[in-house]
């Protein structure tokens, strides 16, 4: 079941197109990662989903409705934007209490206490947020966003400014919310490691267009994965090189001694292994290296820049 549906979304500011025909959907319980360089349109897309910006064309629906026209609907989502929404001049406890009242959270005091404990700020509950470090603010911001148990959580750079330990806490938190609460999470991030660890689906955005959109698993094992084949002797390696060079769905092939490497572009490994065996290659070892999300991201961005 799709919780978020974005179709043919277009948005321009002062004649400059920022979003050019964006289409994707997010299923219930999915952790969806939005990746892209600065200015790619990630925040604009999120703002359209949140009803903060009106699309010029297309639509961005959450729960099948436009957030801009339904105040009630916004009670079902949690949001942590670039600015955390916390007032410097209120204490941690007062900030949470304020939002708990706005969302009509029942058992307010208990819930505020729970959240403070959850984000590890119980001891600083009476300190002004203006005295907090970036990491503490971010943690409290996440606590504020989940205070009312939303069904969908929108996070814009959730781990920005956090130390490695706090980043891990955020990752674990997102994973827990998705697994245990079946919360749907949309994450805008530059942190490729974070996205790779927590997101089930990823869209890579560049210059207002989605350049890649798939599950992390499929992106990593799909086009561009590298296969290393160790052969028993040099002549086998040369035969394997010839077979792989002629095969369809292989982007590049190289040989170094008895080892042959092939970068795949659609070909599947069992078919290639069978072809090499039929050509009389003595195969000792086959190893498929998944590309990291960083490699995929960089290749997509470079490809997009090259075609621009």
């Amino acid at each position: 079941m799709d919780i978020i549906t974005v179709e043919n979304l277009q948005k321009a500011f002062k004649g400059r197109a920022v979003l050019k025909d964006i289409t994707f959907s997010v299923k219930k319980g999915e952790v969806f990662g939005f990746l892209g360089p600065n200015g790619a349109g990630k925040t604009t897309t999120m703002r359209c989903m949140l009803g903060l910006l009106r699309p010029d064309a297309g639509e961005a629906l959450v729960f099948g409705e436009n957030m801009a026209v339904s105040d009630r609907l916004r009670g079902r989502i949690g949001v942590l934007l670039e600015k955390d929404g916390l007032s410097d001049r209120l204490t941690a406890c007062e900030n949470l209490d304020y939002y708990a009242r706005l969302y009509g959270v029942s058992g307010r005091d208990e819930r505020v206490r729970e959240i403070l404990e959850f984000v590890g700020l119980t001891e600083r509950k009476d300190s002004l947020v203006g005295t907090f470090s970036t990491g503490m603010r971010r943690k409290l911001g996440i606590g504020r966003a989940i205070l009312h148990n939303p069904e969908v959580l929108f996070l814009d750079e959730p781990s920005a400014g956090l130390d490695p330990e706090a980043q891990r806490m955020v990752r674990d938190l997102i994973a827990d919310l998705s697994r245990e609460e079946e919360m749907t999470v949309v994450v805008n991030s530059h942190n490729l490691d974070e996205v790779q660890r927590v997101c089930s689906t990823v869209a890579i955005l560049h210059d207002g267009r989605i350049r890649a959109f798939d599950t992390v698993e499929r992106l990593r094992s799909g086009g561009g994965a590298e296969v290393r084949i160790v052969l028993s002797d040099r002549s086998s390696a040369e035969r394997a090189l010839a077979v792989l060079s002629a095969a369809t769905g292989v982007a590049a092939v190289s040989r170094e001694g008895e080892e042959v490497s092939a970068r795949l572009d659609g070909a599947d490994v069992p078919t290639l292994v069978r072809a090499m065996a039929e050509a009389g290659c003595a195969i000792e070892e086959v190893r498929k290296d998944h590309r990291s999300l960083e490699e995929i991201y960089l290749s997509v961005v470079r490809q997009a820049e090259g075609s621009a």
Partner: protein
Amino acid sequence: MNTILTVARKEAGLIIRSRQLMVSALFVTVIFSGTATIGSGAEGGASIGALIFMVITVTGIFMSYIFSGQVFLREKTEGTIETLLCTPLSLREIWAGKVVGITLPAYLLALAGTGIIVGIASVVDRGIVLPPAPVVLHVLVVVPAFIAVAAGLLGFVQLLLGMRENQIINMAIIFGVIFSFSLSAGLAGEGVVVGWGTEGVLVAVAAALLALVGWATRFLNRERIVTTIP
């Protein structure tokens, strides 16, 4: 209604808690009320009635100008307004909550100003000087209503416009409101006699202006607010 009061409580609390802001506001109130009373040589109820009529209304409106920057503009410059726009509150609820939040402390200062005028006049008169009944109505109804009108108008403009436009237009609005009020009082004649008729007209004008500003909030939209965040 609850959400409006929640926003109002937070905003009023933050204003009152801001020591520097409150000291400045109190200083302005004391100077306005004190110098006007001493300068006018006010003696007797009718005389301080005219003084309260003018000085306290202008003081209240001026306070709404000072506080609206803290409430509307600050939320925009700090970017926290964007998160508030993602809560289940309508734009009108957010606006109304903030207007009430400004009106409460501004009105408290206006009351303090009234106290200063009455106090000084009583000392000068060597006895307790009380303002006439229409002036009491003015302080209780007209002053808070005009403060709310000014706060509502300023808040509307501050949400709608970018920072540069706001710097110019806010000044124009506040001095426009004060000028219009002073001009009306001037046209009414030297030494305004504050009667039930004047107060009735002012209550009607304030109610009409409040309704007008409230109606104007329908022209606010989330995109306009988000795209004018600096």
